[in-house]
Structure formats: C-alpha cells, structure tokens
C-alpha cells in the first residue's frame, strides 16, 4: 500500500508526530511562531480522548503538563523563546523530580520579544543552561518537516526512557515551511513508554536506583502513593540535606544522559562528505540546508568541504567533533545567533584547528553564499 503523504507545515508535522507517539495531554500558551502546534492538537487530542488545555501563561502550561505526566499521561507543551524563558523554572523541576515531558521551542530571535515572525537559533545555549543548577539536557534539532515528525516521536521516546524533559528546537523557517511528508505507518517507528514499577506499592520508591540510573515511575491514581518534590531528595522521594544522598542523586541525574552508554543511544548526527573533508561545516536546523548546498557547490570547484549536522544537539557530540577537529584544517559554524554553538565546538576541539563563527541575527536566513565565501577564505 502506498504511504500516506501530505504537504504540510513543520508545526503541523510536530503535532502529528506527537499524536503518533501517543501524546495524551497538551498544555500551552499561544506564541508565534509555535501556535499551530497547539491549534492542531486542540483539534486532534479530544478525538482520541486526550486533553488539551490553554493555560494562563507558559509557567502554568509547564506546570499542567508535569501534573498530567505524574498521572501517567504522555505530555507536550510548545512555545518560543520568551515562553521558554518562563518555563525554565519548571524545566528545572522536571529535571530534579524526573518527570517525562516534551517541550517544543520554535525559535525566533531575541532577547525579549525580539522579532516574533523572524527566524532565529538563539535558544541553543538556553536549552542547555537556561534553568539553574547542574542537570543533564536532551535537545533535538530537526531540519525538515519530515524530520520534525520523526524527531518529535523520538523526543517522546527519550523523555519516557530517561524520565526527564526533552526539548525539540527548530527555527521559524522549518516550523512554517511547507514540505512533502510521508507518514510512517503505525508500528513503523518505535514508540517507548516509561517503565512502570515491578514492585508492589509498599516497596515502591520513586528514585530507587536498584533498577539502574533511571528508576521506574508509578502514576498517581494507580495504587502507588509517593511524594514528589523539587527539593533534593533521597531515593524514597523525601527531602534530604545529607551530603552523600544529595551528591549521589545529582551525579546520577547527569550520568543517566551523559554516561558513555546513554550518549551513544541518545546522540544522532548526519555526516555528509566528511570522510576526506579538509574544511568542515558544523550546522544544524535550517542553516544546515544552506550548508549542504554550500558544500555541494564547493565540491564542484574541487574544494574538499564536508558537513556535520547534529540532530541531537545536547548531549553534544563531543567525541566525533574532537576527532574531526584533528582531521580538518578548520571548522566553520554558521548559525542564526552570534556564535552560541561555536563556543561548544571550540571547547571540544581544544585548539586542534581554528573554529570560525558565522553569525546572523538580522531576521534573514543564513545563505549558502556566506558559507562558501568563508570556506574559501580559510582554504
């Protein structure tokens, strides 16, 4: 049977990806350029008995999804930079209390209201460091309408598997662009649900590490009674200030994502003509589309350019970028901000090659010409 295809906007694909992943609860607050995600879900969720709620602000939207997730729902919220700034308080809560949830950030410029209808990639460091305290971050950066669908599904899988918030960041260009999308059949993409406790209620501890670095999570109302708090807590979920408990829990919550094994499972990258590359372009989101075009043009002229495109931005692909840094003469980092991921690339290559930022923050997309010119300069 032929696959179902459609011409669809990135934001619509995101909403359909969420439905595919089994999302049953959306809490949001309208903001350009993300609003279509909410609009589509207000239509789709009740059809399957799911819940859509428009809250009084983004903080409340984030709170509502966390409350719903604790009852066992698979939850989503969608917003843009100013809304993510508000959500940061409770993104931290989701990190420490380990509550699965997916946050869509359709990026525009900033700070503050910035340019609501212009594209930007200005939240990529906010995604990592926006909330206070040490914590692990998973952030995905799809670059096409099709990929927004599949990465939204993957975001739900990772949120459920690692019991934490997962952010999907894409810029306004991919969010509002219309492209052909092929809908995966039911069962074609993997759909993961959180691990429920295997012990009876009286033995259940919400942060029990005897099951590994990601403890099973029971649902409120399912016969398990437990305590959830944003305070540092012991494995039984109750607050503690005992140094050894606090330290062990903090380290576990970072390790569950940044540990060797987890990293391999979470990281996802595309490499294009990197094998023999002498100049590497590191680009993500819509900027990676300009970068691919630039690489093709440069290759036609005999210049050995290659593209590294992270699809998982956080945790950062440290190993591979470090290796490529030793292989190439320079790494060019085009982004619609003033060099946010450039900093991270620099940190990881540790001076083994020059790292050059191309930043654009005028509300226009970064074009291939800018990248071609920069590569030629270093050649």
């Amino acid at each position, binding site marked *: 049977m032929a696959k179902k295809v459609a011409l669809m906007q990135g934001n619509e694909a995101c909403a359909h990806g969420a439905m595919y992943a089994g999302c*049953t*609860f959306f*809490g949001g607050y309208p903001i350009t350029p993300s609003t279509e995600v909410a609009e589509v879900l207000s*239509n789709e969720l*009740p*059809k399957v*008995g799911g*819940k859509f*709620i428009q*809250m*009084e*602000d983004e*903080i*409340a939207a984030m*709170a*509502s*999804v*966390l*409350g*719903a*997730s*604790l*009852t*066992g*729902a698979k*939850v989503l919220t969608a917003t843009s930079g100013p809304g993510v700034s508000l959500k940061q*308080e*409770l993104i931290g*809560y989701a990190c420490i209390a380990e509550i699965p949830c997916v946050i869509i950030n359709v990026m525009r410029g900033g700070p503050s209201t910035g340019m609501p209808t212009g594209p930007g990639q200005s939240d990529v460091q906010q995604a990592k460091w926006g909330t206070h305290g040490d914590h692990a971050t998973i952030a995905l950066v799809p670059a096409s309408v099709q990929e927004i669908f599949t990465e939204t599904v993957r975001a739900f899988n990772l949120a459920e598997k690692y019991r934490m918030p997962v952010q999907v960041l894409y810029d306004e260009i991919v969010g509002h662009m219309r492209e052909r999308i092929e809908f995966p059949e039911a069962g074609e993409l993997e759909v993961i649900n959180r691990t429920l406790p295997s012990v009876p209620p009286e033995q259940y501890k919400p942060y029990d590490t005897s099951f590994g670095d990601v403890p099973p999570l029971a649902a*409120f*109302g*399912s*016969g*398990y*009674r*437990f*305590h*959830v*708090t*944003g*305070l540092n807590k012991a494995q039984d979920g*109750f*607050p503690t200030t005992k140094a050894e408990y606090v330290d062990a829990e903090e380290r576990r919550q970072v390790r569950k994502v940044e540990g060797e094994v987890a990293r391999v499972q979470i990281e996802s990258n595309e490499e294009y003509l990197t094998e023999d590359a002498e100049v590497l372009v590191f680009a993500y989101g819509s900027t990676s589309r300009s970068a691919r075009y630039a690489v093709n043009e440069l290759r036609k002229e005999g210049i050995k350019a290659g593209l590294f495109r992270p699809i998982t931005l956080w945790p950062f692909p440290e190993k591979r970028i470090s290796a490529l840094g030793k292989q190439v003469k320079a790494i060019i980092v085009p982004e619609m901000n003033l060099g946010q991921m450039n900093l991270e690339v620099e940190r990881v290559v540790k001076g083994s090659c020059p790292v050059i930022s191309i930043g654009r923050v005028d509300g226009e997309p970064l074009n291939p010409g800018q990248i071609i010119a920069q590569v030629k300069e270093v050649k």
Partner: protein
Amino acid sequence: MAYDYEKSLRPGKLPHIWCPGCGHGIVMKGLLRAMDTCGLEKNNTALVSGIGCASRLPGYVDMCTLHTAHGRAAAFATGVKMARPEMNVIVMGGDGDGTAIGGNHFIHACRRNIDMTYVIMNNFIYGMTGGQFSPCTPTGDKASTTPYGNPDPTFDISKLAIGAGATFVARTTAFHATQIDKLIAEGIKHKGMAIIEVLDDCPTTYGRRNKFRSVVDMMKRLKDMAVPVTAAGKMTAEQLEGKILTGVLYKEDKPEYCEQYAKVIARAQGVK
C-alpha cells in the same frame, strides 16, 4: 478516645518542621479529619502544594503528594485533575504562595471552576523566608521588609476567589479549629472550585514583630477578628470595622471544567 490522626500520616515523618505555636499544624489536623469525613481514598487523592512553611504539609500526609515550586500548585493540580478527573485533588499552601507569586494561577483555577479544593493558610506573612510582608499583611504592620510599617494595601483572599469565579468560598480561623474540617469537607463535596481560607498565625515572624507576646495573644486576635457571616447582618458598620466574616461566604452551582471538557471530547468524537 483521642482522634486517630496517625492512620492518615506517613510513618516516621514527624516531627514536622513547624515552630511551636504555628497555626499550620491545626489546619493539617482539620484536613485529616475532613478527608476522613468524606471517606477519601488515599490512593485516589492528590495533595498538591507550592513552597513555604504551609506548603510542607503534604510531605506528612499518606496520599499521592506533590510539593511543587513557589506559587505553582494550582497549575500543577489543574494538570493532575484534567488528566485524571476521577482523582480527588486538594491544594494546600500559604498566603504568599497563593496570592503573590501564584496569584495568576489562583484566579484562573477559580475562573475555570475545576473540581478541586484549595485550602489557603493565611498567616499574613512570608513565614518561611523570615517574615517579609505578603499581599495579606495588614497595612501599617511590621515585617522584616517593612521596618517603618507596611505601606501596601491587602488582598481579601475570599473576595478575590469569589470575584475570580470560585463556586464555593468559605473562611475560618485556626482558633475555630472544629470549623476547619467541616468547611474543608463541604469544599471537598462541592463540585467545582472550592476555596477555604484559614486565617492562622505565625508567632515566629509575624507575632514577634507586631506585639503579640505569646501564641495565646495571637489566637485571641483570630478569635476577636472573626464574625460569623450569619451574625453579620445584625451588626452595624461600626461593629464590623476591622472584622473578618467567617463561614460559607459563597456557594453556587455552575458547570465544572472537567465535565465541560468531557463535552468537548464528545463533540470531537462526533457524538451529538
């Protein structure tokens, strides 16, 4: 025989963090008796709070308990209730938590008329952080950040709740301990948003700065300021000066939010 509170408390979690003479413990006992009266099932009841001395209450109670962030309890609770409408949802918290940082969530939860019971423990102060003034600190009073007297006007929480659309609003004080459980129980039975404001005391940070030498003085203050709403009709404006009405202040039957959303689901699924 003494009332058995322990059956509703988590073993090993006492002593609580509250100071001697703090009113929050009296409210907790009222809550436990009310849960008993209403026959609430522990597994099917979520107790949600924000941050503050008052908000530490859920940690002691043997239910599904959620100690959220400062001011956010009503918004978390809305998610719990929407996702699992069959659960009983009770919010507990302080005056600062509910009407300052959480004021927006408070009024919108009232407006939606979602079926939950919100017990707000108004001790007129930010207790936990050492006694800074809250939106409920009486004008002129001393707080750690109003050394020359509080210049701010105050919120009347119950009036705020009625104005925002809550369909059951009641008020009492920690002195009137036996009324606390009755009003909470009525709130739990009410279908829709029930606000129960309990005026209580913080001897440590409020009493000490405002010439209440002892907890007894603070209790006397609560006793003196309360006038049952049923008695107020016969009193002159002069007699009512500085008094606070107690009892059931407002009750109305209005469509409840989760029921309204169930209709949305039915319409989306094509049910006529």
